[in-house]
């Protein structure tokens, strides 16, 4: 088929691809975003999964989005309305108690006081210390990881800046940062607090989306990375009117306004390489698009081992990339409900604590046992759940009086003993039964459920291994090592081929950080 030459082609219109497209367009280039699905968004989409019921299909809260991206893309002008409820998270306990944490630290402390006065007194200080450390990490997340072999003067400068920011923390917090990073999040939470429910809800942040249990060393790092974008100790609830799809729709609108072109229903099946440089892409229709540069929002394995002929890469690189760890642990279940479930822990019919995230996993050991099953290839029979009921804050998502509930279920290992297709319904059943322990009338209200297994995440959403962060978040796959040591600077061994997805630094969550960093580096290269 006739080929056309473009400036820049971006494979995949997920949030990072769209952010990269925006910044390149703003710099005067004419990027073309090629999205396989009928709508942009990748893992941040809203679908009608039952007539009249719409829900964030995968991601249900934002990372949150980096303030610089909100500002540069003027997302609110492009129709985004963020919803940040006062309540961040409500943790439920099977003994009928609930602990809600609010944006306001003092209000949270009051809630905690019902469990432990000691913890209530410690909570604000913990929040402050975490906030200070997170701020320093946040600065590191916004930089391009330095080149380890040949640090440039710019690299040295940014390392110096990070070093100075770390130094400003003072000795105590500096050592905290060094000590906390490699720790188990269970140890971190237990060191600070005595209330098991509080420990568990904080620890959950360190294991969400990873193949780690709260007792796994290094899980505290995951907490710190997440805190960098969101310093609330247990994480806030960054929702959007219209679900997460509204976020990416606004990003797409901003990118288009800046001059980017977006084509949906355009599936790239191959990245063309000639003499060690990317020359364009081949679509499933046979159409070939030539480009001066190709940027991939797909994960590193998919980009370099599937879309690219690996013979263009050195065997050593291929081997390392094959070892890049990324076996997912998360499944998603979305429920259409004929009414609001009644949670036994909420007294006096007060539903406001349900507006944020709902956390199920009342003890560190509960979370750890859930993880144990995944290690041996089973999904957790008593899973850790993170749920939202977005129709409470945005009634347009469901018919009047009805609700949608979006649930992350962990652990659901990608590598299952047995077949995911056969166990799909058992997984949905487990989620509903677990919820019913806290809201007994939920099964009666259930109209339908949508079950997304890790295998679906791979097959339908292109996430290799079903890993929602495009690769495990761990010490050995972070910063200068994401995705691989020496290849953390958005470039690949193939010239003119770049990465901009979550498999690059900083990764993790719907923040747009990777896309913004990638755009900055690619612009530098293009100007050469």
């Amino acid at each position, binding site marked *: 088929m006739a080929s056309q030459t473009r400036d820049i082609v971006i494979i995949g219109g997920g949030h990072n691809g769209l952010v990269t497209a925006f910044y390149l367009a703003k710099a005067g280039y004419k990027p073309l975003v090629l999205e396989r699905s009928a709508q942009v968004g990748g893992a941040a989409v809203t679908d009608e999964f039952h007539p009249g019921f719409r829900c964030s299909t995968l991601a249900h809260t934002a990372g949150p989005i980096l303030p610089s991206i909100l500002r540069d893309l003027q997302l609110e002008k492009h129709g985004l309305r963020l919803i940040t409820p006062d309540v961040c998270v409500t943790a439920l306990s099977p003994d009928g108690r609930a602990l809600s944490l609010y944006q306001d630290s003092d209000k949270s402390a009051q809630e905690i006081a019902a469990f432990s006065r000691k913890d209530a007194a410690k909570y604000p200080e913990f929040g402050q210390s975490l906030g200070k450390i997170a701020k320093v990490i946040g600065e590191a997340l916004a930089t391009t990881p330095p080149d380890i072999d040949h640090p440039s003067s710019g690299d040295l400068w940014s390392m110096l800046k990070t070093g100075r920011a770390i130094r400003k923390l003072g000795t105590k917090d500096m050592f905290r940062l060094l000590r906390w990073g*490699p720790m188990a999040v269970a140890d971190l939470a237990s*060191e600070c607090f005595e209330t098991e429910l509080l420990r568990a809800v904080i620890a959950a942040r360190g294991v969400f989306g990873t193949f780690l249990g709260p007792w796994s*060393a290094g899980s505290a790092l995951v907490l710190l990375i997440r805190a960098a974008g969101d310093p609330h100790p247990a994480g806030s609830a960054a929702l959007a009117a219209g679900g997460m799809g509204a976020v990416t729709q606004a990003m797409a609108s901003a990118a288009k306004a800046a001059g980017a072109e977006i084509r949906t229903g355009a599936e790239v099946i191959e990245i063309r390489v000639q003499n060690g440089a990317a020359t364009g892409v081949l679509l499933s229709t046979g159409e070939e698009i030539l480009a001066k540069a190709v940027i991939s929002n797909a994960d590193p394995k998919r980009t370099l081992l599937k879309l690219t002929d690996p013979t263009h890469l050195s065997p050593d690189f291929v081997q390392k990339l094959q070892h890049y760890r990324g076996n997912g642990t998360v499944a998603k279940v979305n429920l259409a409900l004929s009414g609001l479930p009644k949670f036994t822990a909420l007294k006096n019919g007060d539903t406001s604590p349900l507006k944020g995230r709902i956390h199920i996993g009342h003890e560190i050991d509960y979370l*750890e046992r859930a993880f*144990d099953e995944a290690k041996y290839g089973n999904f957790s029979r008593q899973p850790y759940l993170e749920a939202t009921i977005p129709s409470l804050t945005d009634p347009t998502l469901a018919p009047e009086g009805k609700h949608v509930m979006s649930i992350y279920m962990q652990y659901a290992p990608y590598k299952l003993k047995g077949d995911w297709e056969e166990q799909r319904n058992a997984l949905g059943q487990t989620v509903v039964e677990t919820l019913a322990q806290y809201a007994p009338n939920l099964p009666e209200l259930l109209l339908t459920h949508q079950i997304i297994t890790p295998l679906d995440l791979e097959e339908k959403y292109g996430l290799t291994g079903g890993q929602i962060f495009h690769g495990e978040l761990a010490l*050995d796959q972070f910063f200068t090592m994401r995705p691989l040591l020496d290849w953390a600077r958005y470039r690949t061994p193939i010239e003119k081929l770049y990465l901009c997805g979550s498999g690059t630094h900083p990764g993790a969550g719907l923040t747009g950080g990777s896309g913004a960093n990638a755009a900055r580096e690619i612009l530098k290269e293009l100007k050469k």
Partner: protein
Amino acid sequence: MCSYVVSLLRPEIIRDLDLPRHGLEILPLDGTFTPMPSGDYLWRVNDHGKTHREIARHSRVDAEAYDEFGKAMQAMCRFVKPILSMVPPDPTTLDPRELMKLLFIGRRFQGMSSYDKYNQVQLMTMSAIDFLDQWFETDVLKATMSASGIIGTFLGVRSPGTAYVLLHHYMGEIDGAFRAWGFARGGTGAISNAIADAAREAGVEIRTKAGISQIIVKNVKAKGVVLSNGDEIYADVVSSSVDPRLTFTKFIEAQHLPGDFLEDVNRFKYRGSSGKVNMALDGLPNFKCMPGPGAHLRGAISISPSVEYMERAYDDAKYGNFSRHPYIDMVIPSLTDPSVAPPGKHVLSCFVQYAPYKLRPGLTWDDQKEAFGDTVVNTIAEYAPNIKDIILHRQVVTPLDLEREWGLSEGNIFQGELSLEQLFFLRPVPGWAQYRTPIKNLYMCGSATHPGGGIMGANGRLAALEILKDIKGAA
């Protein structure tokens, strides 16, 4: 009675102390034998060709990778060794001497090939199994190799950070040869005796049965010690080789120490996870998979048949139980050193993990001691059924025994867990990794300091060098 093999003893210490002249003789321990429930086994020996053929019997690919792995590990050891022999820098000061140390490490890292850098970074951060998965496919090989990644830690083979411990043990070197473990003739007690002899010859006076009850502190200075019999001994320098919990919370009154420091001391994790079972035997164990006596009994015998077996052993411990099917590392020293048992009889020394110091509520170690011993015997009997008939005597050492009788807090054999957040400049207390303490003239020189536990001796040497520096500075 507790330690059973030597390997981590630093060669410079063997040399400086001239330990062979003081009666230390190391008998090599040849290989590791891993029996499997299937009736098969994996038997690695020091003979390269034999090991290659043995691994190839399980997987040809792994046999090739095994050599590569050995080379890669050697490169890692070369990088880490000088770091083990240095006083950790303080990363928070701007003192040029401290910065130079950091620079030294940075330069050494820079100097490595990109292949070695990649391995090094992974080794510092990954789990033993994730690391080994990249090299090998044979489950039993990975399981038995990963075992050294968990010894003395409260971590599982899949816990990040265990790859480093793997290296820590890989560094075993005797007389400068990499990766060779051995027995001391007469038991590991012979090492301490040889070191004591060397010390005496150099002018040290040693008093045994002299328990300490207090360290005398006046005006934030250590002045001496009080013995448990009430005697007071005054000294210019006090150096403590016991762990920080004993040193700072038992021997010193809280009022003498800054609150932050005490908080950090209390936070230091011990979490003993292992026990010992020693047996006097009327003969040799007879393994189903390789019947009769033979060379396979002269090395280490490892009960680590699969990765899942190892991980499940850990799962039990996480919830406060000893492993129902524990990892056991056995040696029969009487085969190499007949002096330790009457003719025809043998000694079997078993290192057992996991035996968590903190059992779940309702259980105590004094009640569980014999059940733990039985579990060990039953586990061995699955592979060598005659074991039950030849036991003359059994000694069970629980983590609680290690604490009560050997003064190891929570029964941790390394005086504190070897986890990343407790290594190098964070060991034992952030900001106090240079063998000094907030109390003047009081020093730490035990395993709780950098570079950690194992019979290494490096801690004592580095502490001595720092103490000498202070004395000379004051003079």
